[in-house]
């Protein structure tokens, strides 16, 4: 297992390197002239050239990439041409919000999706199954941005149960920054009131965001549970009198979850890259909005930074998933 982890960690290096190269190439080969924009509305051609020089954009692409790469090792993610802020600083500001949102959504999705999928499989082709499947398909089909809008209208405007947008009451001070995730920080510093408040802000966007992974996890869980239920060993377990509960929650669950695990890993990355839709609606100051802003101004350093950052998280999460998979599957573990 340790060897396996080490090998996977070593493999991260070429993957991230390749990723950085790919992203750098894509971002830099796109047409558009962010330099002119950065130089300001009244800049002359000479001004533009000086800005390009300032950012090293007059150098060959390979040199630029090399500079970027070596910078990365020093923790320098480059500087936004547009705002002239270091990308690393921006990421540190935006990423925790997105992570909080994605983690909350994933927790919800996993926490609900797995039992629901199990239930649907057990009641296969009966009404709980049909209901769960139809609703889950509905949830997948619902555009998240549309759902967000409807949620805002319903829960914030008409019912007034939850805040409309943002992360925390504006005029109150947030809990001290530790991780940047407000709910976590509130708990860590023991501010339970602040935790509740932060949670109330988190609720709507997290729910809007969790539906799609929830439905996918549920369906995946249902499918894999059905498959496991049809395995010979389940018949043997039943034939030897083990209770339905024990079979389902011990023997079937472990096997079924390992198949669902991969989906969870993939979805995590997918959500990270797709938060922009929900962030827009709920004014959640996350990486998605940052990326969109960067895309719209073709500010490539932030684009590269965000993509690389999400890619790295994605790869890491999948590494963790693979390890969990190994933990659940002795065959993998002992290879």
């Amino acid at each position, binding site marked *: 297992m340790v060897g396996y982890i080490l090998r996977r960690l070593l493999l991260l290096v070429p*993957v991230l390197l*390749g*990723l950085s190269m*790919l*992203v750098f190439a*894509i*971002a830099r080969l*796109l*047409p*558009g002239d962010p330099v002119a924009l950065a130089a300001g509305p009244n800049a002359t051609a000479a001004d533009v050239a000086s800005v390009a020089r300032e950012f090293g954009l007059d150098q060959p692409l390979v040199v630029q990439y090399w500079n970027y790469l070596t910078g990365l090792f020093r923790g320098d993610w480059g500087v936004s041409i547009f705002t002239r802020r270091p990308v690393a600083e921006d990421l540190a500001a935006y990423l925790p919000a997105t992570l909080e949102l994605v983690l909350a959504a994933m927790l919800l999705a996993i926490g609900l999706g797995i039992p629901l999928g199990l239930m649907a499989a057990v009641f296969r*082709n009966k009404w709980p199954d*049909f209901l769960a*499947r*139809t609703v889950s*398909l*509905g949830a*997948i*089909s*619902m*555009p998240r*941005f*549309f759902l967000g*809008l*409807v949620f805002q*209208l319903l829960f914030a*405007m008409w019912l007034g149960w939850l805040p409309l947008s943002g992360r925390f009451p504006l005029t109150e001070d947030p809990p001290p920054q530790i991780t940047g995730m407000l709910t976590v920080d509130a708990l860590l510093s023991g501010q339970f009131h602040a935790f509740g408040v932060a949670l109330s802000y988190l609720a709507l966007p997290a729910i809007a965001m969790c539906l799609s992974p929830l439905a996918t996890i549920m369906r995946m869980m249902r*499918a894999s549970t059905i*498959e496991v239920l*049809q395995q*010979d060993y389940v018949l043997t377990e039943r034939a030897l009198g083990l209770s339905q509960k024990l079979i389902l929650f011990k023997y079937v669950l472990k096997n079924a979850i390992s198949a669902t695990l991969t989906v969870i890993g*993939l979805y995590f*990355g*997918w959500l*990270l*890259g*797709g938060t*922009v*839709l929900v962030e*827009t*609606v709920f004014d959640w100051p996350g990486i*998605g909005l940052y*990326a*969109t802003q960067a*895309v*719209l101004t*073709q500010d490539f350093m932030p*684009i590269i930074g*965000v*993509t690389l950052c*999400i*890619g790295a998280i*994605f*790869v890491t999460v999948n590494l963790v998933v693979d390890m969990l998979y190994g933990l659940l599957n002795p065959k993998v573990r002992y290879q």
Partner: protein
Amino acid sequence: MSSTTAHPRLESWRRGLYRFRQSWVSVLGLLIVSVLLVLAIGGQHLAPYPQHIAGLVDTSARLQAPSTTYWFGTNELGQDVFSLVVAGTRISLLAGMAVVIVGAAFGVFVGAIAGFLGGWVDEVLMRLADLKLTVPGLILAMAVAAALGPGIVNMVFAIALSWWPGYARLVRGEVMAKREETFVLASRAMGAGTNRLLWKHILPNIMSPIIVKMSLDMGFAILTVASLGFIGIGVKPPTPEWGSLLSVARVNMPDYWWTAIFPGLAIFMAVFGFNLLGDGLRDLLDPKARR
């Protein structure tokens, strides 16, 4: 128990059809998709105000609530929302289909090569696909679409760019599994070449999962198209694309809700319909979902 390999094809088709009919949700999906197809094909003729689709503005009748004259009300330019939504069907369906087809075609090509040839070709192609999977798709699509400028073709290209690795992975796995099947071995033993093995023996036998994935992806592709439209990087005006319609209309919420709700519902219905259908098709075609 021992006869799971014995599913003859016709029998499984019949069995699948039986299942498909059994599940009313699949039939519902088929129904929705049929309606969408009708709208996509005959939309221009079915829309009550075809001139609005072409760009006629009637600022004196702007933002009217739904009525018998304007079933879904009018938008900020006085255009009939119903006509726009109907016209949007074709765009969304076409774009969704194009994304899926382009993505699938490229993915199948890459996956087939990787799976069949194996070795370093496989390694290189699959690492590339993995790499592609780690790049957040929506952000990439946004970046590419924004850079190429608006337009359906550009958008389809931008989205399809992040679509192929899924197919490549699927096809590779299937090809590798099928490559070891006895009937392929039989053909190899007879001396069949790569082309014959791939085109006659392997690909026809892996079409089912590809078709299933394509039908399941349709909904997601439509959703992605709409998402790009929503962010504001999509088709060119005055093309009535649902995501852009919704994007434009969100500022009108909640007072002029009809401008947003109806395009939103249209997206939902289309995606829902294709998802239901895809689910049904999977029961029909996917050997893994059988039994």
